[in-house]
């Protein structure tokens, strides 16, 4: 069975990636199962979607614990434990990263047991407003090439089937990108192999335990104390950040801080300050600032600049 996991951020089209690839497998005559997995709506937060495909009916269900192929929409997700990118990897796993760094660097960094492929297929769209929505088609195109059992025309047919609700121009743009990704990965066609099931003759025993009795003071689902959400660095959900141009800021300080849905802008000494640990990069402040004093900076570039400072 092909077991494929797409990792990305809410808004990067990983559900779409799983739907395009799922439909492509289906049109190629496979039994398929595809699904996204996310909690409450979380644009920018790590999410994943998965596809199972084989010639026989599929009985496995739910999260893929041992993937044959993992595709990562953007490399900034790798260090986030919550993204769970490396969960359940094995020697037979293939990891594809959209990255500006090469596979050898990642192989060493991650101590990854399987094969790593790294290529920047998203770079052209990363800095373009709305560009992230194409990541799904790009990842689906790459995956289709890597499994090596989906012909080009079926990939395109699947994109058409999944994008019936959008304009022709958007469909064309998705197709172009998927095809480019497909062709870029063709030299690795068939690198991903079908995996077997978990053997019952010899298996790793689950470490079941008796859940202990805890007094209600411990076992009630209460979060004690205030501001514990500060510990959750939601700034990691951000791919782009707002930066305040102090020379243009008129010091009105209430427009951006009032509109910030995450209370991540505070006024201090008559000036707004952005809390980058919790700013999710929604850019509402940029839109609202009447003095146009807030600009968009790509997170990679901002981090590079931070490092060099």
């Amino acid at each position, binding site marked *: 069975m092909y077991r494929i996991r797409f990792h990305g951020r809410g808004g990067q089209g990983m559900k779409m990636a799983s739907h395009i690839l799922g439909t492509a497998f289906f049109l190629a005559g496979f039994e398929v199962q595809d*699904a996204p997995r996310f909690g409450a709506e979380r644009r920018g937060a790590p999410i994943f979607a998965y596809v199972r495909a084989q010639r026989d009916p599929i009985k*496995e269900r739910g999260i893929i614990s041992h993937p044959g192929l993992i595709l990562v929409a953007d490399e900034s997700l790798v260090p986030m434990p919550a993204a769970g990118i490396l969960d359940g990897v094995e020697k037979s796993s293939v990891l594809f990263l959209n990255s500006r760094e090469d596979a050898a660097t990642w192989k060493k960094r991650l101590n990854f047991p399987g094969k790593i492929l790294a290529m920047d297929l998203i770079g052209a769209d990363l800095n373009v407003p709305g560009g992230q929505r194409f990541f799904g088609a790009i990842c689906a195109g790459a995956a289709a090439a890597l499994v090596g059992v989906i012909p080009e025309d079926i990939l395109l047919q699947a994109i058409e089937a999944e994008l019936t609700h959008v304009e022709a121009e958007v469909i064309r743009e998705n197709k172009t990108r998927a095809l480019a990704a497909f062709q870029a990965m063709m030299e690795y066609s068939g690198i991903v192999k079908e995996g077997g099931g978990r053997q*019952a003759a010899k298996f790793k025993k689950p470490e*079941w335990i008796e*859940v202990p009795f805890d007094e209600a003071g411990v076992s009630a689902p209460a979060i004690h104390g205030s501001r514990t959400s500060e510990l959750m660095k939601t700034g990691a959900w951000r791919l782009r950040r707002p930066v305040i141009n102090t020379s243009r800021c008129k010091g009105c300080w209430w427009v951006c801080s009032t509109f910030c849905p995450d209370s991540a802008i505070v006024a201090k000494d008559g000036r707004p300050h952005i809390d980058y640990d919790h700013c999710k990069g929604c850019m509402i402040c940029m839109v609202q600032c009447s003095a146009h004093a807030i600009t968009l900076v790509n997170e990679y570039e901002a981090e590079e600049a931070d490092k060099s400072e």
Partner: protein
Amino acid sequence: MNKQMLTGNVAAAWGARLAGIDYLPAFPISPQTEIIETVAEWIDTGVMDATMTTLDSEHSMLTAAGGAAATGVRVFTATSSQGLLYGMEMMYALAGWRVPLVLINVSRGLGAPITLEPDHNDVLAARDSGFLQLHCSTCQEILDSILIAFRLAEDKRIRLPVLVNLDGFYLSYTREPVIIPEPKEARDFVGPYDPGTVRFKADAPISEAVAVLGGEAYSYFRYEVQVAARKALEVYEEIAAEFQAAFGRSYDKIDAYRADGAEYLFLMIGSFATKAMDAVDQLRAAGWKIGLLRPRLLRPFPDRDLRILAAGRKGIAVVDQNLSFGRGGILHTEVTSSLYGQPGAPPVIAGFVGGLGGRDIAAEEFYQMAEDLKKACRKGVQPPMRLLYTAGELTAMRKLQTIAHAVRPEGGRDEKH
């Protein structure tokens, strides 16, 4: 053949569409909302000829559903979790009114703590309401079950509301290839709704939901629901046979998978049962004589079928995705009470609880359950209930408690606030 990739939710919407529903009272709740959104779009674009009303709550929604059904139209509605519980008062009422309709429940764990992911405590809380219950394990089965459910609900011998259950996420948002029956074939199977004496109309008033004082009338009406529900066992068999003849897919009251010659059996309901099927295949390959029983019909409970299928086995592992606090797994209780004292009943019926709030059940856990069952059978002693929960999960839980500043006796963080 029209075969498409559909989520469980869209498969449910197709069931409603093919059944030719007249009325959909609606209230949104995750992970069900996609069902009513899909039907709403079809009504809006004229693909479906039905009326949809949005209500202020699930209680009102079920009241509207029952009221509409009492006027003699075909009614479909859907909810999930907290919504099912909020409408629960009306579930008992509608069964008592003896109005036929089909209600989808997309299973989701109940609060508190609140979650979006599935287990079966919601649908099993409706166990005693008088609604008949069908439990699905694939997207195809959801569509098919809705067609069967309308036949069952509207059968003049039964005339009870039917609940069709599907698991959130694992079915609701999961796409699988689904055969969509030809509309004409589906219509021919479900048939036109003949309301018979269900005809609450302005020009022919009747009194619904009357009050009775004195136990003799009350006992009679309530027991008639019981008798009708039991009657549904044989009526279901007729309808399922017709369905198989028309569409080629068979839906026994209990789906028995590789149970022939099995010494041991898993027993579970819902979408995770397909994982158990996978485990059965692997265990069989490793030399085990093991199978799976998956009751589709939970109300009425198919006792006779279970007794026949269980007879002569060494043991059954019941996997409950629910928890009756202070007791244990609900299915385990149902199964043991159904088999107790029956000829050939397995001496050991081990109870496992797992998959709460969408927690996965790993293949290895099925293998371990099989081993534990075998061990218990060798000893001939019923083992205590086992929660599927690992040391690693507890460690992760302890980390969360540390972040939450929960005071722990074994030396977790203890801060004053």
